[in-house]
């Protein structure tokens, strides 16, 4: 909008405003009715669906499928899809939502035409339809996916009881650490950019696994702080990986 368009808008708006009704009581009445509807809908939802608590949180399980509130489904789904394309993985997680947010923030700065009628703004209209359709699709498909974090594996039968315990505990650490974002373990995780770990125990001795975890190659994060702060967890992680044969 250039200077003339701005002044035209302000002049026309002030005429339209002068022709309007006072905020009180006309707009206030509508707002009050809407507020009553909102509170009734909330009360109705509360009475209909209540607020059931699930079982108490248990950090020692990984079988539980994480479910965010429905309005985060689309976000989870974006991340899941992005992670499956190795090129995008490094910027997958917060990168895409950050870019979307910045686009949303800057909307008034790159959409600067004076036109406000949606039927004469084809780009804006198609962007809106595309966004709504994409979010609806992502929310729907996000509602039907599994956990990006659980390692769904049973310990092999030939292990001792202590080894089985290490296996279960280590699988938990793997799940929590997000290893599956870049590695495949059995039927879990993404194939890339990291190498598959399904049989890593037969390729590397435990000491080599541990040193790789502490000093990894570039895109992989270091587990040094884990090794220093909770050595037990780190040992379980190494133990689990060396049991993958």
């Amino acid at each position, binding site marked *: *909008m250039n200077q003339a368009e*701005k002044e035209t808008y*302000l002049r*026309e*708006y002030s005429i*339209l*405003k002068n*022709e*309007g*009704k006072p*905020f009180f009581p006309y707009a206030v009445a*509508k*707002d009050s009715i*809407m*507020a009553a*509807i*909102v*509170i009734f*809908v*909330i*009360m109705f*939802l*509360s009475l209909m669906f209540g*607020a059931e*608590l*699930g079982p*108490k*949180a*248990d*950090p020692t*399980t990984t079988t*539980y499928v*994480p*479910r*965010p*509130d429905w*309005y*985060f489904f689309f976000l*989870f789904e974006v991340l899941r899809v992005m992670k499956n394309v190795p090129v995008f993985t490094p910027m997958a*997680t*917060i*990168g895409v939502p*950050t870019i979307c947010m910045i686009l*949303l*923030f800057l*909307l*008034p700065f790159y959409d*600067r035409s*004076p*036109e*406000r*009628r*949606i039927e004469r*703004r084809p780009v*804006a209209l198609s962007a*809106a339809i595309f966004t709504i359709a994409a979010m609806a699709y992502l929310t729907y498909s996000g509602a039907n996916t599994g956990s*990006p974090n659980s390692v769904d594996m049973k310990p092999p039968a030939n292990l001792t009881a202590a080894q089985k315990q290490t296996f279960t505990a280590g699988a938990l650490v793997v799940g*929590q650490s*997000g290893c599956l974002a870049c590695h495949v373990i059995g039927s879990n995780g993404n194939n890339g950019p990291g190498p598959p770990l399904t049989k890593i125990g037969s390729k590397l001795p435990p000491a080599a696994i541990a040193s790789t975890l502490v000093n990894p190659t570039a895109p992989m994060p270091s587990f040094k702080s884990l090794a220093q*702060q909770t050595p037990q967890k780190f040992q379980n992680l190494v133990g689990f990986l060396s049991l993958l044969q």
Partner: protein
Amino acid sequence: MPRLPAPPLPKVLQPKPPRPGDEENGNVLSPVEAGITVVDWLDERTSLSPGLRWLLWRKVPRGINWAYTLGSATLFAFLSQAVTGVFLAMYYRPDPAGGAYESMRYINDDVFLGKFVHGMHKWGASVMVILIFLHMGRVFLYGAYKYPRELTWIIGVTLLILTLMMGFTGYLLPFDQKAYWASVVGVNINSGGPFIGPFLSDFLRAGPEFGATTLSRFYAIHMLLIPGAIIALIGLHLYLVTKLGITAPPWIKVDNGSEPDLVQRTEA
């Protein structure tokens, strides 16, 4: 008329009651008159009347419809969340070792109307998110984010993000399985973010792991930091909305050339 009313309360203590005995009920105010006196007294000190007049009797442009109530509906949903949230805070203990889940159970099972208020807070969050998206949709379709309301839009987007952060931090607090694992995953996703991602995750978890302090951290963010920011930004958003005026629907046009319209306008 600069009529300066006497202070309302200690009538008996006034040094010189005007014309005693002259009129029978000269000293007695009717309830309506007393109300006016109190308002006058307050107004003499605060000068709030012009501000209130400006706020209430300002014009809204012609042609506004029900879609314009979505903003105030969002505000109302936020107020409902604030009230129900304070109610829940009266009972909630953010202790993962055996306070959080149990206190939510206590609210659900034993507190009078506890489950109802808990449900209102839970579903109120969804209603608020839906209302925000609908409000944003209305603003987008009407082109209401354009000059001169760019700043209002930016503050609105910030409010959207803060509301989603409220949803995220609030989701952990009942500390059931669903809440715990969704938050573990959510924080892990965060830690993969660029630049501040890892620091933000450590801040949220109060350390490199979910621990005894994590729940206090989420709780403090959910009930102090974000609500404070939201209230301040809502204030700014409303100030701008009032200052700049509510947009007219884009299909309502001023007939610049037509004489009858101009005449009509001067009549109105």
